[in-house]
């Protein structure tokens, strides 16, 4: 088995196993430092981030909202984790020269053409639906897919299976026909 892939990346089994070690270290470190075990996740941060934005325009409304009250709008451990993910990917891609400005991805372009607007609307609407789903299911591919599965959470087995089945069915419909 090769340690490097054709595109200069690392073998996904190897990189994934390192994430497993990171997850273990993180579980230990958060417990030791914060007194509470924290597991990797990302989607709650979007609630906190939009809470900050809404506070500028309608602080009263945010204060009265039960979900924002339960989530607590603050720059916490996970918020910084999501910022760190951005920086980590930036550093990795710049140093191995895989950083690439891309406005429309190839699979999308084959199906819907090179319009940035179309891609933008698709990503935006998809993002809305996905986040409502992630908050309802209480996790995303990080929170359920990685952290929940590592803990053998019953809900994560169900959630991850449905993420994949619903995603595969939708992808089969959306990307099937090729644009001429």
């Amino acid at each position, binding site marked *: 088995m090769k340690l490097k892939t054709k595109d200069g990346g*690392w073998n996904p*089994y190897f*990189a*994934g*196993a390192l*994430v*497993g070690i*990171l997850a273990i270290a993180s*579980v*230990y470190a*958060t417990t030791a430092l914060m007194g509470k075990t924290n597991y990797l996740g990302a989607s709650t*941060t*979007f*609630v906190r981030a*939009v809470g900050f934005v809404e506070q500028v325009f309608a602080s009263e409304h945010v204060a009265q909202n*039960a*979900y*924002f009250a339960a989530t607590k709008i603050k*720059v916490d451990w996970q918020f910084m984790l999501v910022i*760190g*993910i951005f920086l*980590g*990917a930036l550093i990795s891609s710049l140093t191995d020269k*895989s950083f690439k400005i*891309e*406005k429309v*991805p190839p*699979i999308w372009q084959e199906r819907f053409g090179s319009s940035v607007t179309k*891609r*933008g609307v*698709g*990503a*935006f609407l*998809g993002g*809305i*639906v*996905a*986040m*409502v*789903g*992630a908050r*309802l*299911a*209480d996790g995303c*591919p990080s929170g359920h897919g*990685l952290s929940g599965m*590592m803990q*053998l*959470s*019953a*809900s994560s*087995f*169900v*959630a991850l299976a*449905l993420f994949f089945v619903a*995603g*595969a*069915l*939708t992808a089969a419909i*959306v990307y099937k026909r090729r644009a001429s």
Partner: protein
Amino acid sequence: MSNEQILGLITGLVFGFLMQKGRVIRFEKQIGALLIKDMTIFKFMLSAILVGMVGVYILYDMGITTLSHKPMNVGAVVIGGILFGIGWAVMGFCPGTSSAALGEGRLHAIFAVLGMLVGAAIFAELYPFFSSTVVAWQDFGKIGMQDALGISHWVIIPIFWAAAIGLFFLFEKKGL
């Protein structure tokens, strides 16, 4: 920055670095997996889970850390899971990888991020409605598979390993 924030930032840096090196954050890889043409993200995720679950349960059994199961709330997990899957296929990113994709120059991820922020705001507004309907249907609580099946987690973990390694051989055989 507080210690908590610094720890989060460093953990995220390594996490983002490894995801980028694994080449799992691109639209191509996410949609490739959903079209069952390129299973890179599943090789990556399952490898992380296999390694992680052993350490997580050793630390837990030693009484060092606690578990943090998400509730097995049937209505919420089923409807939420389906909605996420639909949105994921169109967006081509998930919450964590959208942040990483921006980092490697995939500018269209910004629309995904904006959409997810709006989605979070919509969810906050709909929260009272969801709480009184789908969330109220059937909640089995914060349980693991060991609780659901009534067997030790150290029985489930080797079975999980065997199943995942079987899948890996299948992926490699089919060239996925």
